């Protein structure tokens, strides 16, 4: 359906992609959109690669897109953006967390973490890199990096007319509302201020 927007959220099990997709879906429903969201459970909890899709529009049929179908890819980990890149349509956008989680073959020294991930992404697609881990750490807890990325996603998709702060407040644990709101705001600022663009030089 031409009026449907497809967002793909990918990362590593335990990074909080599901929380972000549920905040996103709730806000879109409150704004009167038809929404479908699909996630894969199972082995993902044990540090495997995870993906969630959220699609919204007037009427959404399929909960998922195939290769070349996503308008926006949000990757919570650098290398995972490359793993799922084929799912982004040419002309789409990638928001990538400039943050590496080495997978098992890398940890045991069998393989190397790929070099210049963000450079490769930038050469192929409209890419915004966000240092969400650092930003969330500065706010007091690196686990809030998922809401930093969500803030960036809100700016990238132009979904700024939805009252996300109240959606976040009613979704996350009560004790973490302040932290998550701060992370969300920082993520939006990071995108607006163009902080992401300078990051190519700062690859860790």
């Amino acid at each position: 359906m031409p009026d449907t927007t497809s967002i793909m959220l990918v990362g590593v099990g335990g990074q909080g992609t599901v929380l972000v997709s549920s905040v996103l879906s709730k806000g879109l429903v409150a704004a009167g959109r038809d929404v479908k969201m699909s996630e894969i459970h199972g082995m993902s909890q044990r540090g495997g690669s995870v993906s969630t899709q959220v699609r919204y529009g007037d009427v959404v049929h399929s909960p998922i897109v195939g290769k070349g179908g996503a308008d926006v890819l949000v990757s919570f980990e650098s290398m995972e953006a490359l793993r799922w890149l084929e799912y982004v349509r040419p002309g789409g956008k990638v928001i990538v967390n400039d943050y590496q989680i080495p997978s098992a073959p890398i940890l045991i020294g069998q393989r190397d973490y790929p070099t210049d991930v963000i450079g490769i992404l930038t050469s192929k697609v409209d890419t915004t890199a966000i240092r969400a881990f650092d930003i969330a750490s500065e706010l007091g807890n690196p686990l809030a990096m998922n809401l930093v990325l969500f803030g960036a996603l809100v700016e990238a998709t132009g979904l700024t007319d939805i009252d996300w702060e109240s959606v976040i407040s009613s979704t996350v644990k009560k004790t973490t509302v302040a932290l998550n709101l701060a992370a969300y705001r920082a993520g939006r600022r990071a995108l607006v201020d163009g902080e992401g663009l300078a990051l190519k030089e700062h690859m860790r």
Partner: protein
Amino acid sequence: MIRLMTGNEAVAQGAYEAGVCFAAAYPGTPSTEILENLAKFKADVIAEWAPNEKVTLESVIGASIAGVRALAAMKMVGVNVAADPLFSVAYTGVNGGVVLVSADDPGLHSSQNEQDNRHYATFAKIPMLEPSDSQESKDMVKAAFEISETFDMPVLFRMTTRVCHSKSLVTLGKRKGTPRRLCPKDLSKYNLVPALARRQRPRLEAKLKKLAEYSETCEFNRIEWNSPKIGIITSGISYQYAREVFGDSASYLKLGFTHPLPKEKIRAFAAKVETLYVIEELEPFLEDQIRQLGIACIGKDRLSNMYEFNPAIVAKSLLGIESPVISYDPATLPPRPPVFCAGCPHRGFFYELGKKARRRNLMISGDIGCYALGYNYPLEALDLCVCMGAGPSMAHGAQKIFSKFGDDRRVVATIGDSTFFHTGIPSLIDAVYNKSNAIICILDNRTTAMTGQQDNPGSGFTLQGEPTKIIDIEAVVRALGVDHVRVVNPRDLLGVRRALTWAFELDEPSVIITKYPCTLAKHVSEEHDESRAMTVLEAGCIGCRLCLNVGCPALSFDRGSKKAQIDANICDGCGVCSYTCKSAAMVLGELADA
């Protein structure tokens, strides 16, 4: 009220609204959340984890006979376990409505095969419904109870991963109070001794005829007319993919009640369209039956019978249209396989077993659960994984043959606690009764871990949170006649090693129980405590990399400093790595500070 729900949540809601009074399941992806959500309606619904799927369905049949609406939920391979009562309850019929949810897993996201359980409907001769989204999941499960009671049949409710685990909008309704039906004194209808079963046989055929008539008028088998150039017959999630690809350029016969099929409706639809596509994931279930009606169609000649679809696959297969993609080959990336969590009690056990396997001629017969990850590098301590409960029984069969032919190969079975209760007990009985010296290791992590830490008969709590008896695995094993039993802490690698060495010397079946709770279950309510993490003493580490052989996600090797390093954000402090360190450089963080 409108809410965004997964298909599984919607099934639970629909069953609740339909007045279901009893529900049972054995956890299995992608079905698990159905019972977890039904369990929340404590005041109205008895919701239980059964030890396996056969018991699940049998308890549901019992509840139905006693007069209430009852639901059984399981993943598709679970229906194989429940097949025995399933085929027979088709003969007996029901009292309160019976719905059996089969959650299929096209694409094998978390399953050992890709079977298409729609064939159970034709095989067991029972009606079947297939929802396409969450609203339909709710509406159809309510209809399924009506159909079950109207036609006196259990209903197969067939879902797939993308319906179970996708969220879409659902309008909530109120619970319909369904009074308990009379449970008659004469229960011969439910007695399938041959003389009585023979009488039920023609009744079953008569019911199927009536169901075939119902299928023609059933609201879930609907035609959406657009252009007559292309006609599409489809069901389940494939309907959504078809709509996405063809939009309003095609007409649809959208089938929700898929056994028995509405043959006249299919004929009438096919006669009015120029080209007929049949779009369905997995086997040509609809297509074969449509072709039997003498209707030509395009289906599995272009669409694969393997793995799950998406709109791009349907467009490419049927229209030859390929979406442009950004070229990057993900196969060049280091893979990211799932691994045992940091602190997982299975790690130490598989590390020691893997060491034995490299020194001795071993076969390791695994089972279904997290511990199947013991197969992965660097642990590499698992050879076989076939189905629930097969670990000990395959081990027994193999060990008998190795022994008979003088082959010195020994067989070790690994099975989890929940799997042991599921079907592992008869497997162990086999080894005892038929006398092999298989070494059976029960990895008791006090929970059903893989599916998300559900309670089980060994955990001390029911699904609805009531304290209950803890079935003592060691006592069960001894009562079955195993004379050689050892219980070890799997984080104590020396203890594990000694137990394995002890078992290898025995000529009779032996059982090693490794007992330690799942690290995820333990931390559900706890914050991560970095002070409990292990640390590497830089001066001590000689860069030998032996510790990396435990395959822990918290442990890595720094190529710059040529030292092992531990990520305190992840490390659980289990200490398994310290057993591998020849220079005693891995210590608990607090000791390093002292």
